[in-house]
């Protein structure tokens, strides 16, 4: 359906361009460039209307295009009459696209076509563009109808319905109604028995499986029905009542013939209880609301992205100014100042969130490109592959989204080429001949998680290990776990494809993916079961402009560590040996991990305190510690670029401005870890700092 939205947006632009050209042509009828613009606009609308299944639009615009073609060739000259006819035609196209097409509209089309043909006699009978069955495009906009009838003994067994419902509701917009399984009788009513039936309408772009997941613990005993309904299905009250089995069709029709409002009539006549009608009405409201959402009625404006960047900069500065003011209000105990500062803080936060949301784009806008890729590639490779996408609404910063495209294409290509097997191999393995690749985007604790999973052959751990040993990436004695072996595919210059194909396997693959995701402050993990399939998960921050950071102090210097890499903080006594080593080994919950002494690494001159704080971070699947003097606290950190002069300085992500106006540097944990590994020998030189 995204395709349709894109088409509508473009069509509007093209129609506007067409109108402008026509108006210019009215003044100077032989302006070649305007004729071309108009022709192109019509031509594009014709082509893309056919693609989204608006066959009538494409049929009609074809005639307009023919006319323009003849104008272009100089066969006919435009005059006022023909311009006004063309403007009429343009208006008609607009209403064909943006309003419902009816028989009446078709009649107008024919009439206009006649008039067009009067001006420009057609060479031969015209057939509409290749027909695309209109219903084939997509699963379609729709919603899930979930009927849940908990087991009679659910209460006795200690099951709570609420968590299940809450989980379902968290998936998307929903409407919940509760009813009885059977109308309770006063004398036989047993409060211990669960006699409830829940009906949940859910408008969410999720798979049936993920809905089933909510019932993981109760699946066996409860009665659960999940249906996908289309918005095209009726939202009439009678149909809803019928659907939930409250009444049959014949009775409704009988009553409907007597006109007034169906709901009132039904409840008055006692055929359906008033409560049931109320519930059905609630559902109706929900469906209508969701329907409205899917029709793009909101006008949009295009804004140059540098204006948005400027806005973002200003907001960032405002955030900084606010933290300065709140610091002042903390020190000076003035009530009026406190109030004003709090209010400013609230507004700043709101302004920041709104500005962010303006920069956010739904990830679905890139899905179309992937569909095409999978379609073309699977044909090329002779495989049967289907791409399923979920979570198209998940929003990401536009910068992140732009830079995410290539890595995702890489992963998809890999899945298609190496993951999914040929149809006969699949059948031999007892799988359906058509492979499935799932592209799923979800929100997960303040970041966005994108998973690409296939049901292909999975990774061959033995092959990878053999290759890695051959390439000298690891040695045979390393004794790696399966998971560690799988992660080897992210090593540079690593490819297990037996032969280099056009599609993938040039040896530059997953390491590039990993590098580009890490450049976006994200992380990539892989999970694969041989014979079952592979899932690659990318976790990304929602925006690159502001991150949650942990502010730390070393001597008199302040640094920020991105919070998403922090796992825990521990405290240690300072020992003599710590003074001289830039890295050492510490025991963290039974594991021995490397700890980097930032004081040594950064050559901080001030004396070491008696207690050292160590922050346990995670980067590149590795745990390691960073020793600092003090952990100041969590901060919203506006990332400022370091000057290009510092682009070769390792371990830094950027800088930020603290509440007091000073600059603190933001550490790039991945880079820092890498640079420590490289410069280990150098950093272990005796320190010049005298012991305290």
């Amino acid at each position, binding site marked *: 359906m995204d395709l349709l939205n894109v088409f509508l947006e473009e069509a509007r632009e093209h129609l506007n361009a067409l109108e402008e050209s026509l108006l210019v042509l009215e003044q100077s009828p032989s302006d070649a460039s305007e004729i071309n613009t108009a022709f192109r606009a019509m031509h594009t609308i014709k082509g893309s209307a056919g693609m989204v299944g608006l066959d009538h639009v494409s049929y009609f615009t074809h005639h307009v295009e023919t006319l323009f073609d003849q104008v272009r060739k100089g066969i006919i000259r435009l005059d006022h009459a023909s311009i006004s006819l063309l403007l009429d035609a343009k208006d008609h196209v607009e209403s064909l696209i943006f309003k419902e097409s009816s028989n009446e509209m078709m009649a107008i089309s024919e009439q206009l076509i006649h008039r067009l043909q009067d001006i420009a006699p057609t060479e031969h009978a015209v057939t509409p563009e290749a027909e695309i069955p209109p219903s084939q495009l997509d699963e379609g906009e729709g919603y899930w109808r979930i009927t849940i009838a908990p087991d009679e003994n659910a209460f006795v067994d200690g099951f709570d319905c609420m968590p299940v419902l809450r989980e379902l509701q968290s998936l998307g917009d929903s409407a919940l109604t509760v009813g009885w399984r059977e109308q309770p009788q006063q004398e036989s009513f047993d409060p211990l028995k669960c006699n409830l039936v829940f009906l949940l309408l859910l408008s969410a772009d999720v798979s049936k499986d993920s809905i089933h997941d909510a019932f993981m613990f109760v699946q066996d005993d409860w009665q659960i029905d999940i249906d996908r309904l289309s918005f095209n299905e009726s939202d009439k009250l009678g149909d809803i009542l019928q659907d939930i089995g409250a009444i049959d069709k014949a009775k409704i029709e009988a009553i409907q013939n007597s006109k007034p409002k169906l709901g009132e009539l039904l409840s008055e006549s006692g055929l359906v209880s008033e409560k049931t009608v109320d519930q059905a009405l609630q559902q109706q409201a929900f469906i209508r609301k969701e329907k409205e959402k899917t029709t793009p009625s909101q006008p949009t404006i295009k804004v140059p992205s540098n204006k948005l960047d400027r806005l973002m900069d200003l907001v960032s500065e405002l955030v900084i100014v606010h933290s300065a003011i709140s610091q002042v209000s903390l020190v000076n105990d003035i009530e009026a100042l406190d109030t004003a500062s709090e209010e400013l803080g609230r507004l700043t936060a709101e302004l920041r969130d709104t500005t962010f949301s303006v920069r956010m784009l739904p990830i679905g806008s890139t899905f179309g490109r992937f569909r095409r890729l999978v379609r073309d590639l699977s044909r090329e490779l002779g495989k049967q592959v289907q791409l399923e996408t979920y979570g198209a609404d998940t929003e990401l910063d536009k910068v992140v989204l732009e830079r995410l495209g290539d890595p995702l294409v890489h992963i998809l290509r890999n899945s298609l080429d190496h993951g999914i097997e040929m149809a006969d191999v699949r059948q031999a393995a007892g799988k359906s001949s058509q492979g499935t690749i799932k592209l799923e985007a979800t929100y997960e604790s303040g970041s966005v998680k994108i998973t690409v999973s296939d049901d292909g052959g999975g990774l061959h751990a033995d092959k990878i290990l053999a290759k890695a040993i051959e390439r000298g990436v690891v040695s045979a004695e390393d004794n790696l776990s399966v998971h560690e072996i799988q992660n080897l595919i992210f090593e540079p210059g690593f490819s297990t494809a037996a032969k280099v194909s056009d599609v993938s396997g040039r040896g530059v693959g997953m390491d590039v993916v990993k590098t580009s995701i890490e450049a976006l402050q994200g992380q990539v993990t892989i999970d694969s079961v041989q014979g079952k399939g592979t899932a690659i998960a990318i976790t990304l921050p929602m925006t690159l402009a502001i991150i949650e950071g942990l502010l730390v102090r070393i001597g008199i*210097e302040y640094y920020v560590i991105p919070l998403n890499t922090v796992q825990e903080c521990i405290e240690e006594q300072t020992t003599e040996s710590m003074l001289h080593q830039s890295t050492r080994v510490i025991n963290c919950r039974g594991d021995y991990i490397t700890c980097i002494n930032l004081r040594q690494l950064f050559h901080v001159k001030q004396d070491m305190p008696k207690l050292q704080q160590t922050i346990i971070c995670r980067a590149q699947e590795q745990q390691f510690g960073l020793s600092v003097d003090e952990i100041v606290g969590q901060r919203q950190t506006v990332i400022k670029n370091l*000057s290009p*002069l510092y682009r070769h*300085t*390792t371990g*830094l992500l950027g*800088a930020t401005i603290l509440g007091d106006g*000073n600059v603190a540097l933001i550490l790039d944990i991945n880079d820092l870890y890498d640079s420590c590994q490289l410069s280990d020998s150098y950093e272990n030189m005796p320190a010049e700092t005298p012991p305290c």
Partner: protein
Amino acid sequence: MEEASIKKLQVLSFFLDQDCFGAEISAIQEVIEYRPITRVPRSPDFMLGVINLRGQVIPVVDLRLYFSLNVSEPTVNTCIIIIDVKLSGESFALGLLADSVKEVVELDTSDIKPPPKLGNVIDNKFILGMVEYNKLLIILLSLARIFSDDELQHIADGSEPSETVIEESDGT
């Protein structure tokens, strides 16, 4: 009038250590008071660190260290001269630490003499010329040459962990 302006050169004069230097003002954005500089670890010594200039993070370079002059503690007279430079097409602001800033003077281009071949405090290639103004010798710096693409590239590339022990002078 126009002919005269071609022959005139407006120069900002400032002190580094004991010597007076001048820089043509067109590249200069502004002069600000000295403020604490955040050190960037593992970068060359003459790159003092970064400051916050109205929300922008700007690097500050100590020309005294770059030219191997004597370095002293910052005083009330210490200033940071903000200039515009270009590195591979990307223009950005850069701060120069100066022991003090004197004034903007207007010089006749005819008064500018080439630097002597030997005995200069800094490398000849960075000197545009020398001029005597009010009995004070001003060494005219070519900012364009000091911060040319080549030199900047050299600075940016050279910022690997430096082997030298940190200078005794304290920039922070």
